[in-house]
């Protein structure tokens, strides 16, 4: 009986183990080995840390990473600010079919691919686009207004793309907050601000943290939105990795960049968790 149970467990775990080892561990090990090679001649390679040194010695690469990280953090905070009232409204203020309908509305944009959504923004924001034309028609602008190809456009695209991933965990945690607790807060003399600060936000913290982690990682790893909406100097770190692999044929440096992205982004998430006094177990468990 015990042996059967063990066998059953092993069989159940096999798909997961296969998935992890074949699609996650082995490719990463391979990528790591590639990142440790240095090209010394035509088709000749040597083991070295040259690629990682390049990352640290060329200010451009480090600067691009910093820029990407800062903009991702900013996008995460903006997403949280916009998504929190929305989620609160969906979870607490409306009930029944209305709730389902609102939730569905958040979901609808994700039925089309990211590429199409980004093109949508391009049509809206470009110089000969809809917003520019409306502004001119309404007399608010005297000439065509260019809103595309700058960092603000990237921000808009990123926030829009990651909204759902913030709304879902927030709605789930906020729904578990019983109305009596909020009412009790008011009964004890609290006002809107103190109830929000003392009751609602602490309760929603696991949702906030997990939503922020997901959104931050999605922004950092996004490729389409920054490249399409961004302007002349809006270099995104994933763009660097892509061009090393595809355009420059420099897999070694690309692999090193990939690993730096993995390590640095993990560090940032860890640092943020420490800073806010949260831990992964508390939020995920």
């Amino acid at each position, binding site marked *: 009986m015990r042996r059967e149970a063990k066998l059953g467990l092993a069989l159940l775990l096999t798909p997961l183990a296969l998935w992890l080892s074949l699609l996650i561990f082995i490719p990463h090990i391979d990528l790591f080995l590639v990142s440790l090679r240095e*090209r010394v001649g*035509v*088709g000749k390679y040597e083991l070295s840390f040259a690629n990682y040194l390049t990352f640290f010695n*060329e200010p*451009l*690469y480090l*600067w*691009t990473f910093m820029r990407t990280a800062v903009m991702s953090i900013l996008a995460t905070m903006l997403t949280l600010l916009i998504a929190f009232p929305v989620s609160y409204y969906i979870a607490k203020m409306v009930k029944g079919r209305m709730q389902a309908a609102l939730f569905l509305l958040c979901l609808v944009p994700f039925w089309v691919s990211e590429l199409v959504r980004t093109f949508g923004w391009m049509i809206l924001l*470009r*110089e*000969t686009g809809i917003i520019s034309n409306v502004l001119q028609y309404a007399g608010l602008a005297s000439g065509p207004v*260019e809103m*595309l*190809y700058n960092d603000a456009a990237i921000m808009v695209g990123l926030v829009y793309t990651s909204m759902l991933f913030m709304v879902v965990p927030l709605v789930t945690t906020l729904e578990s907050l019983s109305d009596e607790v909020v009412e009790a807060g008011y009964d004890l003399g609290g006002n809107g601000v103190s109830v929000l600060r003392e009751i609602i936000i602490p309760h929603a913290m696991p949702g906030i943290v997990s939503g922020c982690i997901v959104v931050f990682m999605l922004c950092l790893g996004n490729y389409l939105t920054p*490249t*399409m909406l961004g*302007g*002349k*100097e809006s*270099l995104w770190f994933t763009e*660097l990795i892509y*061009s*090393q*692999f*595809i*355009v*420059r*044929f*420099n*897999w070694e440096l690309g692999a090193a960049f990939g690993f730096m992205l993995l390590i640095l982004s993990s560090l940032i998430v860890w640092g943020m968790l420490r800073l806010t006094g949260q831990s992964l177990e508390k939020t995920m468990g």
Partner: protein
Amino acid sequence: MKQHVVMLSTAAVIAISAGAASADTLRLLTWGGYAPEDVVAKFEEQTGHTVEVTKSNNEEMIAKLRATGGGGFDLAQPSQDRIAGPQAEFGIYKPMDLSKLNADLFIPSLMLATQANTTVDGEVYGVPHVWGTSGLVVDTKMAPMVKDYTDLCSPDVAGKVSYRLKRPTLIGFAYSMGLDPFAAYGDEAAYTEIMGQVEAKLIECKAGVKTYWGGGDELMGLLRSGEVVASMAWDTGGWKLNADKPDITFVAPAAGALGWVDTFVLPAKGKADDAAYEWINFVMQPEISAMITAAAGNFTASQGADEFASDDLKARYQASFPQEAIDNIKWYPPVPAGLEAIEGGVLDRVKAAK
């Protein structure tokens, strides 16, 4: 009667399976427009082979073949300057058996030049297919002063120009600045020096650039809407726009348009070489080549296909290319392995510059 039917159908089944035995699947890695549906259908009908078309570009083709060690495709079409380098570095192609090709179908000068440029260790790796140039696409009413690559930096068109941050831009600007990048291909120090000058120029010009375009469709949108009045682009892009907006056309720059030739090569682990040779011989026929010219907008290396090309396209070509502009075309020599790293650094720094 019934037996007759059975016998007939048996015969049919045998005939079909016999046909299937010699029929292959040809996995073709190519550019958009190089394998139009009508050509593929004709080929499949004539030979019984099936053709699977994957559309791509130079860099992705090489990256894909490198990832599989030259597997996954039976025929690829990178540009002739991107064959010798990657072959020496990664070994992703296999030599061509020229005896299996009908040499009469090719324009001899293009055939010889391509073979010379794609020879590694005495073996020929590529034969020419489609050729064209890149230069300037200009709205001749709004920006008549743009005649050369560096004119894109002129204050008259500031904020209304675009180009790609890719190697053709570096090469074009270098020629326009009176330098000779192709002559320095073999000399890393000299090439780095040239690229350094181009980098400074591109950073100086950056303020006037609307955006660096990434894909052909994006550029078409920018030019068609009038948001951009002058850009670096391929000749076909200009001619296509010329059909809708007569003011816009392709201009061969004073420093010389950059000439490219896309080829046929056999990936190292291709499994249907015979079908690949059949495809090459099939599409190089003048009438078929004309169909490809109609779809892709560029001329092919097929001998005699010009006669079948449309008069509109010929007229546009002649308007953009007077004889001296043709003589001035700078044909890409093979890119030595490792050159991309120098250019890559320049492009990254230009992109990041304020």
